[in-house]
């Protein structure tokens, strides 16, 4: 398969990346993003006493990426982009934390994740600069890092007046494991690590990783392998979406929905296990292809299971979404309006529920998505109901996609030989639509073909701030519901 048919992977020689004067670089970013581009990666690579900052912009309409760069003096400062383009706010905070380059005038310059190699080692989790609202009427509710349920840690601080939330501040970083440093530390493929960036998106992140590595190592995978990868990606989407719907049902005390959907999810992840031996699809995708085929004999069984899943989910959601007790909790709760979503740079399913049509599968399709097509589902309201409903609709469209893909499986094998020999002085950009939204992996090599920088962006990185805005002016008791409707990753953010 010709890699150039895949719009979601791009390999660029470092020499071909324009390196501008710093001010021109910034001015161009502002102009391009105001027109039709969108930032998907913005990071620095230290070079002697300066830092080379790369910006990767996505052109959603044409399915292309635009990369530019500029040298910034180490520990220097510049007039921030966030002031012009709020969608840069997380990226600039991250750049500041990692390199110490100060975006002057940034309205919310707070630590992102207290990464181990942060520029300011003196800062610590305990000293997080929380925003406070003065006044006798305002009280604070602090939750976490350890939460009531079996979930990952993060600290939430609500500024409330009675039940009403004025502001929610989310402090993350507890999950930081140093993922970005671990990739270049090994002179070998590390799909196992990619599978653990966010375990609920094992397929999504590993697919993004393997595609980046295949671009750098000039490996082509078979059409069959591509189909199996995208089938796995959709199985992951179906399983997590069902799980989230079950959790939303549980949060509004709708126990039938919780029990039924929880059991249906088991069918889906057991299907993944039947394919590759792991319920989360760990161990399926490797640079060069996939390690497991979906045998002809197994395909009818998978289709049968998916039909059962489809029927149950459709009936259950039909009942749930017409129940007044459920709807009264979901509708008009936790609204993120389209304009806000666009400004803060929301991505993926949450963005689509707010009316923003962003979907890597349609905008940057690989060959499989290009051929089989998957509808881009967009809902206008941006409330919890929309984020629940969009999951239901995506489950149905993913099942339909898998049915088509199963029929299209080829006989051209599953694995191609994959040698860890990377292109020199190159950058690979890989985009994948995980169930949460766009996963971006960027790999950079030096003149010896050694991986020098590996940048990972989980959709949670964009979307946590969306959750903050969603709960504003809602009751604090609706927070669990808002939280579940986004279901963001802590470790995907903390890396």
């Amino acid at each position, binding site marked *: 398969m010709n890699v150039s048919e895949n719009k979601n992977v791009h390999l660029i020689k470092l020499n071909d990346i324009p390196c501008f004067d710093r001010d021109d670089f910034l001015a161009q970013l502002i102009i391009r993003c105001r027109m039709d581009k969108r930032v998907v990666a913005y990071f620095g690579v230290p070079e002697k006493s300066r830092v080379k900052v790369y910006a990767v912009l996505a052109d959603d309409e044409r399915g292309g990426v635009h990369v530019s760069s500029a040298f910034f003096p180490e520990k220097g400062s510049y007039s921030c982009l966030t002031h012009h383009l709020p969608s840069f706010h997380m990226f600039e905070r991250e750049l500041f934390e990692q390199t110490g380059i100060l975006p002057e005038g940034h309205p919310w310059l707070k630590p992102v994740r207290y990464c181990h190699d942060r520029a300011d080692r003196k800062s610590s989790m305990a000293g997080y600069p929380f925003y406070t609202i003065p006044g006798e009427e305002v009280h604070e509710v602090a939750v976490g890092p350890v939460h009531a349920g079996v979930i990952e840690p993060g600290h939430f601080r609500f500024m409330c007046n009675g039940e009403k939330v004025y502001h929610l501040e989310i402090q993350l970083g507890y999950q930081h494991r140093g993922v970005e440093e671990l990739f270049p530390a090994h002179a070998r493929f590390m799909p196992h690590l990619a599978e653990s960036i966010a375990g609920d998106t094992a397929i999504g992140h590993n697919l993004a990783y393997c595609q980046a590595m295949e671009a750098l190592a000039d490996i082509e995978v078979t059409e069959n392998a591509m189909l199996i990868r995208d089938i796995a990606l959709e199985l992951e989407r179906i399983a997590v979406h069902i799980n989230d719907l079950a959790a939303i049902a549980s949060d509004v005390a709708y126990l039938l929905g919780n029990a039924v959907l929880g059991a249906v999810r088991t069918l889906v992840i057991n299907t993944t*296990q039947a394919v590759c031996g792991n319920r989360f699809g760990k161990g399926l995708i490797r640079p060069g292809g996939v390690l497991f085929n979906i045998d002809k004999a197994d395909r009818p069984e998978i289709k049968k299971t998916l039909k059962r899943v489809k029927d149950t989910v459709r009936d259950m959601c039909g009942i749930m979404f017409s129940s007044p007790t459920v709807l009264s909790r979901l509708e008009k709760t936790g609204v993120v309006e389209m304009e806000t979503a666009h400004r803060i740079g929301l991505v993926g399913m949450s963005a689509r529920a707010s009316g923003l049509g962003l979907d890597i599968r349609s905008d940057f399709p690989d060959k499989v998505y290009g051929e089989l097509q998957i509808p881009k589902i967009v809902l206008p309201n941006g409330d919890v109901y929309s984020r629940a409903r969009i999951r239901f609709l995506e489950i149905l469209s993913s099942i339909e996609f898998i049915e088509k893909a199963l029929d299209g499986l080829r006989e051209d094998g599953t694995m191609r030989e994959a040698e860890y020999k990377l292109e020199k002085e190159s950058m690979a950009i890989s985009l994948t639509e995980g169930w949460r939204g766009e996963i971006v992996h960027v790999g950079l090599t030096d003149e010896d073909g050694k991986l020098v920088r590996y940048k990972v962006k989980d959709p949670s990185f964009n979307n946590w701030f969306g959750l903050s805005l969603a709960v504003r002016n809602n009751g604090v008791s609706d927070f669990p519901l808002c939280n579940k409707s986004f279901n963001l990753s802590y470790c995907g953010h903390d890396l």
Partner: protein
Amino acid sequence: MLRIIKMRIRQGFQTIRDIRKPVLTEKFRGLPVLDPEKCEKNCKACREVCPAKAITQKPLKLDMGKCTFCGDCQRACKEGAIRFTNNYKTAATRSDSLVIESGKQNYEEYAVKVNREIKKMFARSLKFRQVSAGGCNACEMELNACSNVNFDMARFGIEFVASPRHADGLVITGPLTENMADALKDTYSSIPEPRIIILVGACAISAGIFADSSALDRKFLDDRKPDLFIPGCPPHPLTFINGVLGLLGR
């Protein structure tokens, strides 16, 4: 209302009746079986592909506490000295039991030893507080699955509770990150004594594939002895439930 009743009836009874009995798909990678006699002395293919440095040679050993159960070693070994079986009962009460050597076939018998004190205290009701210290959410999701209608762990009196004050033990996932060190210690000290510790997943047991990371702080485990180890990446709900039942002598 009729639709709701119909939905309920259609669901039937989906709970696994005997939690010790289910047989998982052949492809599931559980307890490894080693055949050291087949291990070629000069070949190190398995060690080279292992992402977690779980394998040592001369003699051939595999540490399930580090293993991600990816199966790469099985594929790399031309002699067939390593084979993963679909046996999910891999829990152990001692970390050295996790190291699989030659043909010991009775893993379950020696790996999980009933702890009399724990049995006396907690056999009929055991409540856990779970702390994820860098866990990737795979282990956490599998622990949540233990309580769903399929596995229904609560029927044994084993549950996850919201507060450490209500808990009898701590279930830890993740490689123990530096940023989570204080919160982990605080949660543990909030659990009334006697309290037990269970490590779930390769990350918690040995830091797994994050062993080389500089962002970890595993000092918590220096002077505390875990009571149960649940290997896997992530461990199957059946591995966790059967391990805990074994510890309780049930």
